[in-house]
């Protein structure tokens, strides 16, 4: 029974990692940039979701509002931060992104206080029992929305003109341009979707612990970075599988080697071991 419970917990966390990591891998696939500031957008999503929900007492409004605003912020970050430095060596964008993330964390701390905010009336806290395992509605909601969102994303990329334009741009921007695809629009869309997803993930995570605090972006996003490497940079399906895998490895790892290594280190230990065996990640090659 314990094993099943661990598995379910692992998959739940994994599905949340997936929603965060997909945004990251989308950016990498398109621009070859490690968008560390994504972590800041995740936290921003949590904050906005909480604030909107608290003022309007409507969680759906909070989630949507947060997703749209954060999506917009993501596009702004692309325009102001990344676009001007695309022709520089890759470490420039990486370090700029890190600087941006740290600045964002600090702004959250200074504006909203270091101890974080809570929901005045936390939604989705009811307990549900599934196959003998106790779960909270928020956790189930998380998994369902992850499936929905990623399913929609997959449909979008396979069956709509926008999706095809996006995949073409990722594959070969020059040829895509010569076919008349507006690569700039594709980039904006890319950042909007990735950031909106991060925001939704942020809201769900905040529901689970009824807390948003300035540093909440850090750890999930560091893990997300490890995930996209594992999944094959730019490979959405690979990222999805790697996320679930990591969630499960973490759940079991914490129990079995938790005395040796703390929880967050397990993710990286896993990453390093895998990279040593397969340096290109688990699912390289799109």
């Amino acid at each position, binding site marked *: 029974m314990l094993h099943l419970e661990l598995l379910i917990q692992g998959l739940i966390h994994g599905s949340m990692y997936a929603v965060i990591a997909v945004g990251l891998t989308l950016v990498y696939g398109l621009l070859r940039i*490690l968008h560390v500031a994504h972590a800041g957008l995740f936290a921003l999503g949590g904050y906005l979701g909480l604030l909107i929900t608290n003022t309007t007492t409507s969680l759906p409004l909070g989630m949507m509002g947060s997703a749209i605003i954060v999506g917009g912020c993501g596009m702004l970050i692309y325009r102001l931060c990344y676009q001007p*430095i695309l022709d520089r060596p890759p470490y420039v964008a990486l370090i700029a992104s890190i600087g941006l993330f740290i600045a964002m964390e600090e702004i959250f701390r*200074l504006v909203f206080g270091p101890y974080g905010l809570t929901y005045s009336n936390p939604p989705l806290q009811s307990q549900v029992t599934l196959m003998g395992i106790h779960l909270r509605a928020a956790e189930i909601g998380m998994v369902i929305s992850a499936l929905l969102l990623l399913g929609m994303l997959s449909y979008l990329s396979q069956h709509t003109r926008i999706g095809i334009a996006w995949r073409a741009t990722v594959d070969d921007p020059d040829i895509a341009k010569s076919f008349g695809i507006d690569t700039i629009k594709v980039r904006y869309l890319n950042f909007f979707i990735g950031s909106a997803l991060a925001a939704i993930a942020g809201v769900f995570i905040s529901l689970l612990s009824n807390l948003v605090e300035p540093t909440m972006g850090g750890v999930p996003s560091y893990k997300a970075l490890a995930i996209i490497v594992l999944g094959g940079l730019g490979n959405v399906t690979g990222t999805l599988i790697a996320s679930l895998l990591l969630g499960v490895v973490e759940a079991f790892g914490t129990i079995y080697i938790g005395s040796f290594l703390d929880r967050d280190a397990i993710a990286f230990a896993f990453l390093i071991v895998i990279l040593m065996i397969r340096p290109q990640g688990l699912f390289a090659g799109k």
Partner: protein
Amino acid sequence: MGIYEISLATVVGINVILALGLNMISGFCGQISLGHAAFYGIGAYTAALLAKTGVPIWLTIAAGMISAGVAGLVVGLASLRVRHDFLAITTMGVGFLFLGIVRQQELLGGELGISGIPSAGLGKIGYLVVVLVIALLSAAFSLWIKRSWMGFAFDAVADDEDTARGLTVDVGAYKLAAFAMGTAMAGVAGGLYTFFARFLMPDDFGFITSITVLSMVAVGGIGSVFGVIAATIILTLMPEFFRFISDYKLLVYGTLLFAVMRFAPEGLAGFTRGLLARIREKQPAGETTE
């Protein structure tokens, strides 16, 4: 010079050694390391643990240097198989791994760290002198490496690995050398920190520290020895001179990192170079440049 200024100067010296180490890895050889603090920590913890069992101070620092260098070799071996973006995340992972292990092991002090570290017995000023001497040696070492044939090889590897390989530059060996030397320097800095602070906490060697050191290298101009030294001094002293910003210290760091990368990716060194070039251009014709 009061006790406070002496302590500050000591910290500057330690940071210079640390930053020059990272400069060797990331600057000279183009390998982006986001986990430099781990090697700092390995040096510090090694020195601390050995010192508590009675080993003479300077031996423990040497041990710290060696253990950090060996760890660097191991991580360097990882860098042989992966590149740029992967490496950045892998080194970040190494950083978290180090923290994760140290936090969980009571032997290594656990969450509370190591305390009761013996003093070096030199007094504050004596210790400061030693630190500054080692910092100067590190700078000299960095410059020497940079201007030697090894430095040329490092440049080649940083610029274009595949071409370098084609020119029979043993890319792997140079990457390893850069990593080992840079991390050994971090180990020395760690050992020196141990006897300065005489109290180690895991958080002193976390991701934020890695980023702080990286910002010193980036703001100085990745690869430039003088630039990095200047940036380290400025960034270490800045919060002290502007007391009112101590609460905003991290915000300033982050914004600075972002702004430098966005507007002047070559850092102080590049900026100075540009300035000097423009000054020289303004010299009347007939005068030789330089």
